[in-house]
């Protein structure tokens, strides 16, 4: 799988290259600034891009902007954005294009290598990988006056995992329950939130995220 990597700190860049190579990813180019990132993405058209939000020359959200611009040119280009902090504003911008193939994770998540690699693969396959912190912020917005409040604690947990972009199998593994039980919970969640069920995992996740993104009803 061909990867373009953008990270300005040499220490982290080398670490990520080592990590990705160890899991049989081919890092076709590793760049350290926004403009080169946009060029690398449009020329290499990688299977997935791993991008740090903050890059030179401005040291602001250069990486995010380059990734969004590249996705404008190549719709659906899978991009996994890494950051020292998560900001709902950025999650919304990544998701606003309505297609999958986006991920937004805290840099710390890299330390859980298996999950991180799983997230890259998911994004490359057109799925989503949202940081649990983004999801928990979204869920707090639906605390008391939204249908989300009517979910059981177990269902809320499943909803959280689902919004992060995990498949039923992954949710089952994380919660130590059977896939069938997860299926039952997701059914119930979709009915309570009034969402249409979809066989397609990605579309299901996007529907849930769009629902959580919208302002809670009064």
């Amino acid at each position, binding site marked *: 799988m061909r990867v373009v990597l953008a990270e300005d700190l040499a220490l982290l860049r080398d670490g990520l290259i080592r990590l990705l190579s160890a899991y049989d990813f081919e890092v076709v180019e590793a760049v350290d600034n926004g403009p080169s990132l946009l060029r690398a993405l449009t020329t290499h058209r990688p299977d997935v891009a791993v991008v740090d939000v903050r890059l030179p020359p401005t040291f*602001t959200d250069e990486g995010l902007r380059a990734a969004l611009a590249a996705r404008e040119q190549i719709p659906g280009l899978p991009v996994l954005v890494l950051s020292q902090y998560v900001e709902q504003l950025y999650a919304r911008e990544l998701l606003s294009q309505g297609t999958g193939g986006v991920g937004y994770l805290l840099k710390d998540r890299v330390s859980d290598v298996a999950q991180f690699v799983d997230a890259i693969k998911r994004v490359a396959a057109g799925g989503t990988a949202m940081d649990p912190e983004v999801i928990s912020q979204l869920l707090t917005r639906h605390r008391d006056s939204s249908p989300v409040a009517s979910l059981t604690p177990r269902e809320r947990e499943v909803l959280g995992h689902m919004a992060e972009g995990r498949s039923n199998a992954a949710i089952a593994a994380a919660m130590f329950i059977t896939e069938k039980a997860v299926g039952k919970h997701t059914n119930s969640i979709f009915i309570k939130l009034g969402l249409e069920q979809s066989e397609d995992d990605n579309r299901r996740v996007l529907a849930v995220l769009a629902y959580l993104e919208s302002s809670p009803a009064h």
Partner: protein
Amino acid sequence: MSSASTWPERPAGTDRPEGAYPAAFAGVAPTDLAFAQQPAGYRDVAVHQHPVIGSAPATGYPAEPGYSGYPADPGDATGRTRPAEPARPPRRPAGRLKLFLASWALVFLVIPAWVGFSLLVTSVASAIAWVGLFLWLGTAGVLRGVSGAHRKIAGCILGEKITTSYRKGGSGVFGRLRVVLTDPARWRDVAFMFYAISLGFAISLSALIAFFIFPIGYWLSPLLLRLQAVTTRTLVGPSGEAALQQRIGQLEESRSESVDHSAAELRRIERDLHDGAQAQLVALGMNLGLAEDLVTRDPKAAAALIADARTSSRTALAELRSLVRGIHPPVLADRGLTGGIEALALAHPRPVEVDVQLAGRPPAPVESAVYFAVAEALTNSAKYSSAQTTWIWLRHDGTVLTALVGDDGVGNARITPGGGLAGLERRLAAFDGTLSLASPSGGPTIVTITVPCALTS
């Protein structure tokens, strides 16, 4: 309690249609601008615009004392942070009865003015024998009293406060004498005394006499008295130097406050780092060292220690993240005030209507101070107001940046000394900015933040 009855100055409610903010804001704007020069005055006006603000809370917040910004103690219900400044009703020009009394007072003030004149002549005449120099101290005191009384009366007539400042200090008789002799304000007193016993007296006397001649006195007397007051203000009102001195006082105060503030912030950051991330990194290093030791003898235990180390690193990062957010939120650096406020609204547990229009970016320290003020206002709203909707409105009119944060909650919010809002008020003061709070019992609550600044594109 409807908002219209508690808050007659403003159009009803916070459930504004699009574009209604400027209308709701219109009642505040002029005083806000005035506040940029005179913080104390504005706060007085703000308090008096909302008579309910001083009443004891009937309903609303639970009566547990001590949470920041919303004390249960109705005694501290003025919403002010500097108790040293007494609340004053807004001054209005005097009515005819007051003018009549003022004309009497002005006429009789000629007596001390003559006393001053005689003292002056005597002290000048005896200056050669040194005695006059000491007599001069007493003369200056009398003259100061005369012009002071004229200032008071003129202030009453014009409906404003006329102040001036005299130089202080000077130890010993000679030191004191030197200060008095070199103070321009004293010499203005002398000049004014000549006016007060001649033309000034004539004007005052005519005004008094005219009062008894109907009907010309009805309009002539007030006119004459106003003329007299304006002349007084010009002669012994605030001089350029006095205004500068006042400004220096303000700057000294806000400077020492911001120095204190940043010192306290640095201490807090140091403590947070010491107890948080630093400690976590020490634990991490310890675990890794142990794991290194154990990796051949007991790989299982080593693996467990490495897992612990990973947890420590995550916790340390989380603590650093929250610390960084408190110092300078990354989104503010990335996207400026507009993006920062948008992000704040998104992270708020309740829906927030955001109406922010900025043609450029304010200076970074202003951005940061306004951002934290808005954040604090939002936090308070979420914690205590039980509001259904919260809104943020922000504009820059060319000279002043104004941000309003409002909610339709239960009101009764206060700025408590030492609380979050008071701290931000001090921080804003460093830029001549202000933070004021209007929160009558029953709501709505509106926090107004103004900072004079220029925008850069």
